[in-house]
């Protein structure tokens, strides 16, 4: 059984679609091919891979309530190819949107279902995952925690040496290991729902069974907390990456 995993996020690095699709791939058995679709240059690789595929798993972000324009183009190409070659592989979909509710991916999944019906492919269901950007950004959480402890370790080491008080015990006592533990726990707790959603999809692909439409979002994080974290995230990101003060985010274009 051959499965082709296609991630369609336009982001080359730190893509949430690729991250979630990787989890599905881990739980899928059989021969696996991974293709990151970035644009027309990847059409040939995708179409060649589809020739002998039994299943495809398509991971896509949701842009303005549906699949992005470049994915629509890819769908048209695949439809044309599948009709020419009389291909009838199974299609599984993994959609992620920036909103909290995973169910906001339902229209994108429905579009993919309509595409399958037109192209003569078997739509075997999908997963809609909410809070996509947060799930992706959560990967930073343990990295930041561990990095903070490493810096503390580095500084503590030189401070203890300087004061002639160095011992492994003294160094260990000066560290706040709990920072790394808590940040890792936050990452694990919040991510577990989407991981389970993506993993279950992998199981369905392995068995080539129909996967009912499933929706999930960040676990153990109520919506109001998500809104709070998301707001902080946008402000911090614009400030540190683009040196933009928070009030500038509300800028209105008045004259063009």
């Amino acid at each position: 059984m051959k499965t082709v995993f296609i991630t369609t996020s336009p982001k080359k690095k730190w893509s949430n679609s690729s991250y979630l699709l990787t989890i599905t791939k881990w739980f899928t058995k059989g021969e696996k091919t991974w293709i990151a679709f970035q644009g027309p240059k990847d059409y040939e690789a995708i179409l060649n891979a589809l020739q002998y595929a039994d299943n495809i798993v398509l991971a896509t972000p949701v842009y303005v309530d549906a699949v992005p324009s470049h994915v629509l183009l890819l769908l048209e190409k695949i439809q044309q190819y599948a009709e020419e070659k009389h291909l009838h592989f199974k299609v599984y979909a993994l959609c992620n949107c920036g909103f909290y509710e995973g169910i906001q991916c339902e229209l994108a999944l429905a579009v993919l279902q309509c595409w399958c019906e037109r192209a003569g492919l078997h739509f075997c269901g999908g997963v809609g995952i909410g809070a996509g950007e947060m799930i992706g950004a959560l990967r930073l959480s343990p990295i930041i925690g561990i990095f903070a402890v490493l810096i503390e370790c580095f500084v503590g080491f030189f401070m203890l040496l300087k004061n002639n008080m160095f011992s492994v015990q003294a160094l260990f006592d000066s560290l706040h290991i709990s920072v790394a533990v808590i940040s890792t726990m936050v990452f694990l707790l919040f991510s577990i729902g989407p991981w389970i959603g993506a993993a279950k999809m992998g199981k369905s692909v392995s068995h080539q069974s129909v996967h009912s439409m499933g929706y999930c979002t960040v676990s153990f994080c109520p919506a109001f907390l998500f809104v709070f974290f998301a707001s902080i995230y946008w402000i911090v990101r614009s400030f540190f990456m683009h040196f933009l003060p928070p009030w500038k985010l509300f800028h209105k274009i008045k004259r063009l």
Partner: protein
Amino acid sequence: MLQNTLVIHDIALPPAHKENTLFFFAGNKTVRCKGCFGCWLKTPGECVMHDGSEHIGSIMLQSKEVWIFSKILYGGFSVEIKRVLDRCIPGILPFFTWRHHRMHHCPRYPNRPVFHVVFYHADTATEKEKLLAEKNANAVAVNMNCSGCTVTFLRNVPAGWEVLKK
């Protein structure tokens, strides 16, 4: 207010000369959204890709009426129209609010346009696709904080802009 009406279309009709109306042809000139969020975080309200579509989001959200003429494709908008819609997010803020019991983006502008979506080639679409297209159009309207949305299905490609007079 920039103008009263914005018409986004993917049909190769010459734009009609209508007062206070901007005709925007969704052709291959419009580059697809790269998902960089630069329009929210780097140059708020304006896309970072300067291809002539960088202000379309702000124009849309400051218009009284928005007409969208699109071929129906898999129960949604055509590739060209979707490319333009994907580029419209500078018109809204990255922050969240609740509308219709679901999370949506906060509006950047106080104006609330009315959406009129016209899907053509509807004779080639199934009932399921038409229903989905209607849902898609309404979802975009809610997401863009519009005050209303009408959806029309045409069998063929519109021969002119008469539908705008309705």
